[in-house]
């Protein structure tokens, strides 16, 4: 087990190095650079070039990359062009916010999606099942910014129950995490339902029922655990998606997370921040995936890592 984890982490390292190469070259190949963008109406050619030199952007791409990697190995992600602050500081200020949002969204998604899926599967083609699956379909196909704006309109503007922007208190977390959670709940509900339906037709379920076990025990102890593998995969993927995909929700709720930091940085071509943020996202995504793989073993003892 330990060796397996080490092996996976070792592989992740290569993935991350690959990502630095990709991001580093991609953002520099896209037209537009920070010196041109931040220089004002009076700027001369000399001044634009001076700013480029200040930020080390006048050097050949390979030299810039080597400098970046050298700093990275010393734990230094560089300094933001827009704010003069260390990139690590910018990320430290933002990442917990995104994590909080994604985690809260995930909890909502799992609770609502999971429950809806289980109930639908036990009463297939019932009114509840049909309604739940229609809502799941709506959830899967609704754009996040639209749902977010509608929630703000209802709960902030009309009812005045919840704040619509900011991130100071737990109350601020409700609407954005609900937006994220409701959208992800759709997929989870559908996956749980189909996986449960399949499991409920297995022989051992019939056996369990024949033994005279209570239906609730049959469903939650015998069926659910076995139906969980595909569900956990989807949840893991969704969590990764939530981490990276909070950009729209963060924009609508002006939530100070990584997504907005990244978008702001892309618009101003703040290269060091983009590099750092993508790297952190990639690392988080890889770790979540690793976590999901390890979880399989706990859910289904037949799965072993050697």
């Amino acid at each position, binding site marked *: 087990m330990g060796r397996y984890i080490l092996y996976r982490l070792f592989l992740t390292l290569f993935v991350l190095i690959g990502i630095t190469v990709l991001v580093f070259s991609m953002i520099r190949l*896209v*037209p*537009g*650079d920070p010196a*041109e*963008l*931040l*220089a*004002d*109406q*009076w*700027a*001369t*050619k000399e*001044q*634009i070039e*001076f*700013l480029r030199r*200040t930020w080390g952007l006048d050097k050949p791409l390979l030299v810039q990359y080597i400098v970046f990697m050298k700093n990275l190995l010393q734990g230094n992600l560089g300094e*933001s062009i*827009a*704010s*003069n*602050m260390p990139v690590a500081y*910018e990320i430290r*200020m*933002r990442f917990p916010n995104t994590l909080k949002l994604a985690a809260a969204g995930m909890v909502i998604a799992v609770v609502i999606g999971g429950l809806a899926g289980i109930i639908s599967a036990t009463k297939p083609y019932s009114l509840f099942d049909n309604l739940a699956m229609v809502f799941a379909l709506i959830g899967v196909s609704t754009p996040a*910014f639209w749902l*977010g*704006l509608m929630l*703000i*309109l209802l709960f*902030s*503007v009309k009812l*005045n129950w919840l*704040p*619509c*922007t*900011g*991130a100071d208190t737990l109350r601020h977390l409700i609407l954005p995490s609900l937006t994220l959670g409701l959208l992800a709940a759709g997929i989870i509900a559908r996956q749980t339902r189909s996986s449960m339906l399949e499991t409920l037709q297995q022989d051992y379920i019939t056996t369990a029922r024949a033994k005279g076990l209570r239906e609730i025990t049959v469903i939650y102890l015998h069926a659910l655990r076995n139906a969980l593998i595909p569900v956990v995969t989807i949840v893991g993927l969704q969590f990764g998606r939530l981490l990276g995909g909070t950009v729209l929700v963060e*924009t*609508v*709720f*002006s939530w*100070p997370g990584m997504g*907005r*930091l990244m978008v*702001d940085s892309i*618009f*101003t*071509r703040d290269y060091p921040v983009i590099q750092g943020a993508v790297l952190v996202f990639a690392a988080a995504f890889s770790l979540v995936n690793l976590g999901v793989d390890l979880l399989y073993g706990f859910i289904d003892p037949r799965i072993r890592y050697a």
Partner: protein
Amino acid sequence: MRKVFWLLIGTLALFSAALGAEPRSGGTLVVALGTDIPIFDCVYCHGIPNLGIIHLVTQGLTRINPTGGEPKVLPVLATSWEQSPDDPRVWIFHLRQGVKFHDGTPFNAEAVKFNIERMLDPETGALARGAFRMIEAVEVVDDYTVKIITKEPFAALPAQLAYSPMCINSPAQVRKLGNKEYHKAPVGTGPFKFVHHIRGQEVRLEANEEYWGGRPYLDAIVVKPIPEVASRLMALEAGEVHVAYHVPPRDAKRYMDNPGLGIDVLTPPQQRRMFIGLNVQWGPFRDPRVRQALNYAVDKEAIVESIFLGLTRPMDSPMPPTALCYTPAKYYEYNPDKARELLKEAGYPNGFEVTLHYGPGRYLMDTEVVEAVQFYLEQVGIKVKVVALEWAAYGAMMRKPLEENKLQMFFIGWGLPTLDPELGIGLFSKAAWSPGLNCMFYTNPEVEELIKAQRAATTLEERCAIVKRIQELIMEDAPFIALYYEPQIHAKRREVKDFVISVTERIDEVLIRDTWIEKGE
């Protein structure tokens, strides 16, 4: 019956207004900007509304008259100034006396010298260093008099010093924290003191009890970035913020039509010129008749009325009406027949094909305007292919020198934060060719001469006479399709009183002292 009811309501409102007219202290003003303030130091920050917030803490020497009226330049930390009669390169600035920085150190001529030199020092890496490159030296005459010497006569200096990146910071604090770290605890002379700046989240300022203009009524100001306009307006309507920057015309109309919402629309005067730049070195645009034809082909009034609901006016000069020495030089009325005639004369009876670039989302209603222009040009036989680019990529295209520049037509807005002809018409010279902003690659020998001449003018009359001629020449040469001046539309909740956003898009750093909130929080 209904009339009586409204009359009653009106009388009541008047009464309460009269009763409530006495300003009261207290409360926190919450302002929502569309942009995030990246850093709290004028020297490294960009974006005029962002800089306007920084100016509430670290003020300037001068400021632009918020109404755009005369005189164009008003005092802040400098109380008066004069150009030396013997040497037009020398300016004397008299400073406000008895002013202290928030850290208790005195504001004086040394501080002015320190800050201007910090801006000019290449080591600082100031984004706007180029805007002050005409300054050769700053000399301290006495504690409250400072002499600024320009390399050549430069009539626009007092206006130039009002440009947002020029702030007077406490030299003691800058020395203590160093250039790079100073933004963490900036210290100025303004009506508000810096409390904190959490990037992407909020800026918090508190009243300066010892402000030289008297303590402000407000206790504090909080500034939040809310990039999504729909969220920004909902936050305003929900009462979460008091002021929202940049409101689309249709929402402004909704607020004006529904006074019950308790939201006032602010429309400070305009200074940004919106036009379609024409690369005068490209194909058909080499012929001025073609460029004039394009100007006649577009119905500016219809654009102003239907897209901007009449909140602005068509462009009739390369400068905005609020600029010093503005003159309505020439207005190209909508006349498609004349446009066709001119095109025929120039040898394009069947029109031609051309590509128009723009960066959607940058300016108010930009896509709508570009589509309207495309439609009008189609009517006179010109097929316009519209290419939308992300702003930074579009900017990179504009900064390319002539040989590599691929732009034919492009939609752009030029702000004039100093309201001065220097920048107002200076960009129409060869010196401003890309990578400067003149990617129309326009030049006219007579205009070039006159631009130099206006700099050296020592009286306003002399300067304005020259500048009037320049405006006429540029409008006649038409290196652009002159469209309109971008309206500034913002909104505030009605309980906020005496709140002023300036012609420069900044919250006025002096008038903010008088802003108050009727209901407190």
